[in-house]
């Protein structure tokens, strides 16, 4: 029992001593993926709906724009999160 408590304390102390640090590579990867995946999903939804309703470019264009907006919105949100952590 005491042994467990001690080990738990050690882990907690260790956690406090080493602050969480995200590498620049990690940030870049996360942001680029945020941007890319939203655009990709928007495009796919648009193409799928065009295929279904056979209205070739209309939904594709609408959802492409929405996807790009969503991508930048995600980028903005994750950048704000980074600022909050600093």
């Amino acid at each position: 029992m005491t042994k467990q408590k001690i080990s738990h304390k050690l882990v907690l102390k260790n956690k406090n001593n080493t602050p969480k640090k995200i590498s620049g590579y990690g940030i870049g990867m996360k942001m680029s993926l945020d941007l890319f995946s939203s655009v990709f999903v928007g495009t796919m939804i648009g193409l799928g709906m065009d295929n279904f309703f056979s209205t070739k470019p209309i939904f594709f264009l609408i959802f492409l724009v929405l996807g790009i907006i969503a991508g930048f919105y995600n980028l903005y949100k994750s950048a704000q999160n980074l600022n909050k952590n600093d």
Partner: protein
Amino acid sequence: MASPLSQFEVKTIIPIEVFGYDISFTNSALAMLMTVVLVILFMYICSRNLSIVPSRRQTVLESTYEFIEGMISDNIGREGMKYFSFVFTLFLFILIGNLLGMFPYSFTWTSHIIVTFAIAFFIFIGVTIIAIYKHGLIKFMAFFAPSGVPKPMLLLLVPIEIISYLSRPISLSVRLFANMMAGHTLLKVIGGFVFVLGANTFIIGGILPLAFLVALTGLEIVIAFLQAYVFAILTCLYINDAIHLH
């Protein structure tokens, strides 16, 4: 010399066909099976002869447990411990899969987008079901409408929120896939440099790329750990979003 991408080729080992579908046992399936066997062996060997004063083997297991436990209590909170076994399994499966790919002549199944996408997609479905089950359909729908926004803006914001929600499995799977694929391709390309430059300049030219290759192998092992960690932590974040809808 073989192309740097030939290492990702899926080869059939035992051809199986059921109702016209090709479900052959491939080298990818073999790698996954080996991963499962290794995880089970790891758990079995480390959890034999458990004692209050842990042996060396038991310490490895306990620190792995505490690592995931810390991850969950940091990101979800104590009520997230229900999902401990899921995150633990996922982390070990991907970690051992990544590390298994570092052995020469083995196959890295995490470098295939369809595998990582299948994992990410089922996490996505599971998280959505948890959210609907916990909060009901109406509250879940309200997740897509940010509060304090004028009504006409919702017409634009709701599709954007839905798209960014749907993009989660893509970004989750592409992250793991791209890192593993890029790393292994790079290793193969540098390996090609070692061979070609070494063969043309009586070994001297191959020394520098070889040193680089050794360093890159170390980096790749770090990335194997890091990507498994990132995958598990993002799963935790998604479960957290599902439990505490905001």
